[in-house]
């Protein structure tokens, strides 16, 4: 398969990649930084099967980013607040924020593989692409997804229960 120009890959996958990385890291600036790193690597080594490759590299970077940041010692804090979010009523904002934190907490308690399979599926990956990006056998993707979905929902319910008890 001929390599796709990186600019085209960028147009197609950048936002999706940032979204997946944000769900994984909880920091949009950091997610964008990592996504740019992924595309810089694609520039050096254009992938044949780009989407699984891009997301696999991104997930590897997330795993390694802590060590890499220490080694390079030059972690940049990208400017925040360039594009203000649309305003919304305070109570809706609070509820949405609380939900987001509960989901993120539930995701944080999952195993890496379960979480990654789930996040890739949320970005529209089919089973073949998930297998390619994670190294799983295709026949194991469905089972892993079923387990991951159940753990996410149950973990979220636990978070919700704790939140209501606390309040």
């Amino acid at each position, binding site marked *: 398969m001929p390599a796709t120009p990186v600019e085209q890959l960028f147009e197609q996958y950048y936002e999706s990649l940032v979204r997946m990385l944000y769900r994984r890291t909880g920091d949009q600036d950091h997610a964008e930084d990592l996504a740019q790193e992924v595309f810089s690597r694609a520039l*050096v080594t254009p992938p044949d099967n780009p989407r699984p490759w891009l997301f696999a590299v991104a997930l590897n970077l997330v795993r390694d980013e802590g060590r890499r940041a220490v080694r390079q010692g030059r972690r940049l804090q990208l400017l925040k607040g360039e594009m203000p979010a649309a305003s919304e009523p305070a109570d809706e904002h609070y509820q949405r924020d609380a939900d987001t934190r509960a989901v993120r907490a539930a995701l944080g308690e999952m195993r890496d593989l379960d979480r990654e399979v789930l996040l890739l599926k949320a970005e529209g990956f089919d089973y073949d692409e998930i297998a390619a990006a994670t190294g799983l056998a295709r026949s194991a993707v469905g089972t892993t997804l079923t387990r991951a979905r159940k753990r996410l929902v149950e973990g979220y319910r636990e978070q919700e229960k704790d939140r209501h008890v606390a309040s």
Partner: protein
Amino acid sequence: MLHLDDGVIAELIDGELDEAARAAATAHLAACAECRARHAETLAYSGESDRLIAAVGLPRPVRPFRSTPAPAPLPRRIPWRTLGWAASIVMATGIGYYAGVPRPGSPSGVADARVSANQQATGTEASRPSLAAETEGPARRNLPAQEPPATPAPTETEMPRQVAAKHANQPAPAQAPLTTDALLERDRQQPPSPQAGAITSAQDRSGRRDESSELKQEALPGDKMLGLAAAGAPPAGSMEEAVTRLGGSIRLIDGMAPVAVRFIASSAAPGADAGAETVRVVYLDPPARELWLDQRRIDTGDEQAGRADGLLVGDTITAMLADGRRSLRWRDAGGFQLLLSGFLGADSLQVLARRVR
């Protein structure tokens, strides 16, 4: 009865089964209440997890990779490498010319060279013998006309004549032939004007304007360098070394006078890549805080550079550094990776970056 496993149920829900497998699974579900219950449970978890993940959306729109226009790359920089080659060629030509001029012990050659120059100026081929006779002196004139010299000595007469014809518009040496040392001494005493010299001669011979000569006349960074040397700090040698290390050219902020040039290791340069030495041109902003223009040359095919910075021409990254400086990082079309940093606002950095030449 064999039941459907979790993987098949998930594939059925996600539409990953082929036609035959899907028909078989559907038929099994119709006949098996236990599998129907598991299917319903899996479907519920799937829907709920999709909803939860979708709730974790990006808090703001993704910042475009090319969020700001890149500083316009301008080709106005001194092509040191080109000028170096031109100077080498001219020097070699000059040395070759003066090496071919006879030494003081061979007056006939000098006379012929001067004669050729005069002939070229007058365009009279027929007058050559008489002019030659006037310049050769009485000893040569007394030779019988029917007795040519035993050896025509082409090395002493023809070579200077050919070269002199090329330089017919230059005054012939009045007395002794110029040696290389004499030529250098003359240049020291009478430095060539910008319009004179090697490149101008090349233009005259070819009848075409040389691009390198036009660029030489602009000499923007060179002017800054001279101004810098006159101001006393830093020494011009530092700037020259920086130019050398950067492969023959350097980026400067147009309209601002640098106060220092530093060579810093990659570990000390914010945003620099490992293994690359960075040249830092230092300016002062109005409150006399340092404004840094860090730069290094990269090869567009440099795998390490491409992997490390991920910047394309036209990309910019604005960042807040750990020491409170704000930085703007970009790559220009000339193969420079640049990072402008200082205690300035983003807009000010953008304005200054557009003035980087």
